[in-house]
């Protein structure tokens, strides 16, 4: 028996040593390591003149769809952005800033104001544009595609992204767009001046699709390389479900001469740890999926951070949202939407309580010790990096709703306690409130969400505020949020385009994303106190959003956006926690890809350095 144990021990030690040796020898940035087995992306036998221009990336599992009209996921959008080309495209300037430049269009055009106050864009296509199968790409292909995407029967997740164009309606849309194939022009009328119009022209839902192809097989045209006709830098060569989608260079792309990659493979995988292992051994050369547990390790390793690990900007906010119908009246035991819970208790008092709850959260601790991915502590709903439409960064000018200076932590807590002491019984001996009602924190159980949940639970628990955790699956929680069947939950909101309206518009009463139920019919807690005191939420907020969406005076529009955020933050129905970042891994020899703060990545200019 002794012999056996010593043998086992020896084997263990030997293997541990081997692991250690190999690991330390395998320094990051050294990309000469051989890939095990057959890497689908890099076949041996390099072409004369350098390394094979073949790249294998992983952005997740099979996308739900890669039909430009139907897609709403970021991984699907990344594939679309490489397979299709819109009228305009994103471009990184020398100084690192990003702007919109022409893609299929000849140039980026300025709108002209029409007599009725609407704005008209006349965009001319480049000459000789072709689809990947060699047929001519016409102006009418664009208008067909947009009319198709906006038709409710097409079932597009992003139907609303066309709402800037005159004639939009979610039931019977008649977009004010017109194509002239002979002149190669597309005429678009918007009801107001839209500062993010150019970005929309680069957005995947606005990419063109081929009418004959789509109509021949509306549900299945995207599944096979034979029918997946596109017009971008790459065209599909193969889609094997659960395995990979292979794209190859599209010789018919107008700028094919400048596309350097011959092959772009999207390996399909959904396990972050497995994806990371495949990046470490070189099977993948780029991935947007980094395991949460690895982020702090990679970030603090000077051999990895900004070498092959990067933290990209990502325009989004992680926040807590409250159902405003639920009363926090002292002494009622559990938070409740029962009318009795609202006697002698007002929505304004409720809002004050939510404000205090927000002040008790130490956001610096959350970004430094929990998320650890370079996120910024949030001090307003619209995230950092968003524009106010006049070229000014929104957050630079907007109010700070609380201080996120680590030095002010105690002051924030003191302020919160002052507010709460007005209403609740404070036991000085234990330093806790004794009659704060218990409420539920609804969360879909991902490791990140649960860690956040536990931290916030602790921060409140210190003061006798008890939160029970209500874990539900993603689809279940989405339904609960839509129906108002929750008290508090977390949510993340990512921008569709770089303009603050993409965040502010979600709280109009009719919005399906207005989970707090601000201004919803019969929402007890959402009474007239919001807005400017004399108006209801609907009147006040709706008016501001309408101003933003219809005003062609960019300054008035920006002013309305600042007021809208103030109106929203005054309710404290949303408590922003942090602004997102997007960590990604890219091997050091992968050069010149373009990453946008919407989370999209473009490989049309990328190459593998020899």
């Amino acid at each position, binding site marked *: 028996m002794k012999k*056996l144990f010593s043998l086992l021990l020896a084997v263990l030690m030997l293997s541990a040593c081997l692991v250690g040796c190999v690991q330390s020898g395998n320094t990051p940035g050294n990309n000469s390591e051989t890939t095990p*087995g057959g890497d*689908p992306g890099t076949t041996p036998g390099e072409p004369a003149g350098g390394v094979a221009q073949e790249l294998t990336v992983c952005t997740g599992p099979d996308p739900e769809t890669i039909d430009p009209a139907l897609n709403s996921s970021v991984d699907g959008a990344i594939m679309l952005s490489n397979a299709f080309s819109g009228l305009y495209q994103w471009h990184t300037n020398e100084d690192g800033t990003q702007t919109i430049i022409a893609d299929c269009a000849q140039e980026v055009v300025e709108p002209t104001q029409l007599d009725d106050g609407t704005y008209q864009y006349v965009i001319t296509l480049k000459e000789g544009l072709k689809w990947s199968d060699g047929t001519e790409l016409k102006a009418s292909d664009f208008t067909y595609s947009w009319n198709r995407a906006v038709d409710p029967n097409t079932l597009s*997740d992003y139907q609303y992204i066309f709402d800037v164009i005159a004639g939009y309606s*979610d039931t019977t849309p008649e977009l004010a767009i017109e194509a002239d194939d002979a002149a190669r022009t597309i005429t678009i009328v918007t009801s107001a001046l839209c500062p993010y119009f150019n970005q929309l022209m680069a957005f995947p839902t606005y990419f063109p699709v081929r009418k004959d192809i789509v109509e021949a097989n509306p*549900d*299945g045209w995207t599944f096979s390389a034979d029918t997946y006709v596109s017009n971008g830098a790459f065209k599909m060569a193969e889609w094997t*479900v659960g395995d990979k989608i292979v794209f190859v260079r599209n010789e018919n792309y107008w700028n094919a001469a400048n596309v350097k990659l011959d092959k772009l493979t999207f390996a399909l995988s959904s396990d972050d740890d497995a994806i990371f292992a495949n990046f470490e051994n070189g*099977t993948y050369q780029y991935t947007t999926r980094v395991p949460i547990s690895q982020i702090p390790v990679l970030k603090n390793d000077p051999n990895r951070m900004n070498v092959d690990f990067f933290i990209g900007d990502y325009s989004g906010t992680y926040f807590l949202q409250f159902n405003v119908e639920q009363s926090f009246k002292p002494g009622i035991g559990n938070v409740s939407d029962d009318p009795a819970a609202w006697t002698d208790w007002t929505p304004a008092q409720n809002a004050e309580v939510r404000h205090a709850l927000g002040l008790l959260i130490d956001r610096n601790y959350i970004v430094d010790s929990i998320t650890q991915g370079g996120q910024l502590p949030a001090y307003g709903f619209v995230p950092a990096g968003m524009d106010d439409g006049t070229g000014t960064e929104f957050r630079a000018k907007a109010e700070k709703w609380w201080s996120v200076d680590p030095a002010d932590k105690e002051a924030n807590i003191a302020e919160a306690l002052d507010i709460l002491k007005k209403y609740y019984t404070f036991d000085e001996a234990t330093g806790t409130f004794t009659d704060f009602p218990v409420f539920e924190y609804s969360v879909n159980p991902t490791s990140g969400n649960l860690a956040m949940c536990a931290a916030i639970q602790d921060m409140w628990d210190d003061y006798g505020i008890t939160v029970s955790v209500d874990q539900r699956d993603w689809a279940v929680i989405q339904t609960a949020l839509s129906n108002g069947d929750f008290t508090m939950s977390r949510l993340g909101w990512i921008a569709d385009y770089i303009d603050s309206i993409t965040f502010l518009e979600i709280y109009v009463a009719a919005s*399906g994303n207005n989970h707090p139920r601000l201004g919803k019919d019969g929402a007890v807690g959402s009474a007239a106190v919001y807005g400017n005191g004399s108006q209801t939420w609907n009147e006040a907020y709706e008016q501001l959003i309408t101003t933003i969406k219809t005003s062609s005076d960019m300054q008035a529009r920006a002013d309305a956006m600042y007021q809208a955020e103030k109106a929203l933050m005054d309710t404290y129905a949303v408590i922003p926690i942090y602004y997102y970042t997007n960590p990604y891994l890219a091997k050091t020899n992968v050069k010149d890809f373009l990453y946008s703060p919407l989370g999209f990545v473009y490989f049309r200019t990328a190459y593998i350095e020899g």
Partner: protein
Amino acid sequence: MDSKMLRYVLKRSLLAVFTIILIITITFFVMHAVPSSPFNKQKALTESVKKALEAKYGLDKPLGQQYVQYLGNVLKLDFGDSINFRGRSVMSLVGEGFKTSGKIGLIAAMLAIVTGVVLGALAAIKRDTTLDKTILVLTTASVSLPNFVVAIILLWAFGVWWAILPTRGTDPGGLIMPVLALMLYPSAYITRLTRSSMLDVLGQDYIRTARAKGVHQKKVLFKHALKNALTPVVTYAGPMIAYIVTGSFVVEQIFSVPGLGKYFVSSIQSSDYPMIMGTTIFLSLIMIFMTFISDVIYKILDKRIDFE
């Protein structure tokens, strides 16, 4: 096949049909009892699109009507389209996934049975020797390690640090690690099962009789002991094969195997109703079939078992 056997098969088939209908009914109503919808997305759909989607997938009709329609479609072998993978039929997704999962599952199951029976028999014959104890330690360790731990260790050790095996299931040789990860638990379990059952049999009177009669040791062990010791293994192997060929969520995720396993989890998380039904029915069918097969093998192994 004698008439008794035929009657038995018929009876079992009828029972199978009844079981499947019961499973469909329970799954259908439980699934719809969960307050959830496949169309509630992070960014809400417009009302008109949501309505059109519900109409497309028949979710706008009363539940009873949906149920009757579903049963009718199942009879026509039409399991509908997945909601989560737009435009792909449940049949094609499950079929394609099963091709892969079935292949690695069968290989893993066969290897597990062979290694398990051999090691178990060896351990029993060499009872209390170092070999027996080594096998015992290794199998205890294997049974107690969850397969995601095994899979992750294999992935990093052979796929990254030593880099001697491919890390994606679809690459040449890529199935080695998933098969290893899948077979570890059942082979260890079968080893222990065979060992204890074999020890039990070896202590029986008829073995002593056979030995006393001077029957050759090999014949005693293989013809008399092992054959009889395999009955519990057969009981275990039926459902084990059914589970293993329908794919493991964890193992397939970690080794990027385009199998069936992921659908069991993802369809429920996203309320992809047609996929939930399709995967459940498929698993039940395989399970019923494998149980039937193991019952037949029982009979062959032990003539005393009666089909009635």
